[in-house]
């Protein structure tokens, strides 16, 4: 075994010894990182699922142009061709008065509601599907302007206001989650840094002796950096397990409530890459915390 590899093994052994000797403070650091990452992970999961819903709405976004009853059927079809040529339009589906009635009866579960009426009160309409690049507030505004005043169109309806409100809610949730993550991450960083500082203080005799026998700064510092990294890694793993457990166990109980908030029930958990990122962010926090402690501490 060469000396470089031996030094790495010794650094690992020393860091594990450090964690074992300061089990209480190490556990506190691991727990702090775990709590921070549970909160950050849960918030991120919620935001990502909300964003997913927004994307789905965006994909299904379409405008409905209700047509004037006085427009003859042949002109209505001509109007459909004119709208199809408008900017941002992908395709246009013509819904006749009869088709509209059939759809209404399907949704209402029968024709009792309209039974007393002499004639079909529902207007013919054009379902306008947008191209992906036009599914924005600006795209809809441009289309809106180009269709405005077009003879035969009675009313142009779309769910843009609702979608914009939902998008604002997602953005707000994302900002809140980001802020919470940063603030809690900073707190975790300080706690890990203090844990390592305590370890430096508790092991000052060892550090003095290591310096006497010719230990380099790297030899002294690396075990502390590994200690922070290992603590962070364990914290990250615990957080992942807790978030996963909560997702699997608690979600069915609150599915209905979440449907109201998030808009759908088929929520997804982190992908493998995202799970690894969560655990590694714990390791990063731990490493950064120990570096913070070492920069301020006396190690050799």
């Amino acid at each position, binding site marked *: 075994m060469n000396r*470089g590899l031996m030094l790495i093994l010794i650094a690992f052994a020393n860091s594990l010894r450090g964690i074992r000797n300061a089990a209480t403070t190490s556990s506190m650091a691991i727990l702090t990182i775990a709590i921070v990452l549970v909160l950050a992970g849960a918030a991120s999961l919620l935001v990502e699922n909300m964003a997913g819903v927004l994307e789905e709405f965006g994909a299904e976004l379409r405008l409905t142009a209700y047509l004037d009853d006085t427009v003859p059927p042949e002109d209505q079809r001509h109007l459909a061709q004119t709208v199809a040529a408008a900017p941002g339009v992908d395709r246009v589906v013509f819904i006749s008065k009869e088709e509209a009635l059939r759809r209404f009866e399907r949704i209402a579960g029968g024709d009792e509601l309209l039974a007393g009426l002499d004639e079909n009160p529902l207007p013919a309409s054009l379902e306008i599907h947008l191209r992906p690049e036009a599914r924005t507030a600006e795209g809809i505004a441009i289309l809106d302007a180009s269709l405005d005043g077009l003879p035969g169109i009675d009313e142009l309806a779309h769910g843009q206001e609702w979608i914009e409100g939902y998008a604002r809610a997602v953005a707000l949730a994302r900002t809140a989650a980001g802020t919470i993550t940063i603030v809690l991450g900073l707190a975790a960083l300080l706690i890990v840094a203090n844990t390592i500082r305590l370890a430096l203080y508790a092991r000052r005799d060892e550090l003095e002796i*290591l310096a006497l*026998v*010719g230990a380099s700064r790297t030899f002294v510092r690396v075990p502390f950096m590994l200690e922070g990294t290992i603590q962070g890694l364990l914290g990250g793993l615990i957080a992942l397990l807790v978030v996963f457990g909560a997702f699997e166990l608690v979600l069915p109980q609150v599915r209905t409530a979440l449907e109201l908030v998030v808009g759908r029930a088929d929520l997804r958990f982190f992908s493998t890459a995202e799970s690894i990122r969560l655990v590694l962010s714990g390791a990063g926090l731990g490493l950064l915390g120990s570096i913070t402690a070492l920069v301020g501490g006396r190690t050799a």
Partner: protein
Amino acid sequence: MYHVSKSYMAGQYALHDVSLDVSRGEFLFLTGASGAGKTTLLELIFAAEVPSEGQILVLGRNVARLGAGAIPALRRRVGVVFQDFKLLQERTVEENVRLALDVVGTPRREARSRVFAMLKSVGLQHRRFHHPLSLSGGEQQRVALARALVNEPEILLADEPTGNLDPELTIEIMDLIVKASTRGTTVMVATHDHSLIERYGKRVLRLDAGRIAEDVPSAVPSTGAVS
């Protein structure tokens, strides 16, 4: 050591204008009252302190100008023993001695065999899995000595190594230190135990208030001396 002074406060010198030449393999006692500057002189040699004035050449390196990154390399060539042993209580005797080999990444098998041989030479091989607290003062100092020597240093510095030991153990430890010097290691021992100085008849440097008050040459030829 050329015109070396060390001052911790303006105008007050722990060492003042000390010039000293110690040959390779020489054995030297440093003596003097408490506060005479013995410990400071040793600390300057292993770069625990930086001189305020003057130059110190140790193993061909000017310690006064040594960068922080070069100090560990120097200390691997200088073994140090203290009155309070400086052993890690939570580690075994073997682990304590092995520290000096771990810092240079000595492979575990080689380290174990060298530690065993070293402990055998100080008569503690059977205690290698014990912790320092279960050992007597003399045994603990032998462990510290084994740690200082396991890397085969060219210089051994001992600061009151027998200060905490009874007369019988004192001789035991000093005999081991003298034995190290016979293998060519330069040895400097700070002590104010005059019986030791008389017993071994080596060169004696007496310090008084930070200055060299007396430099008495060895009464016996130094085995590994190089002039």
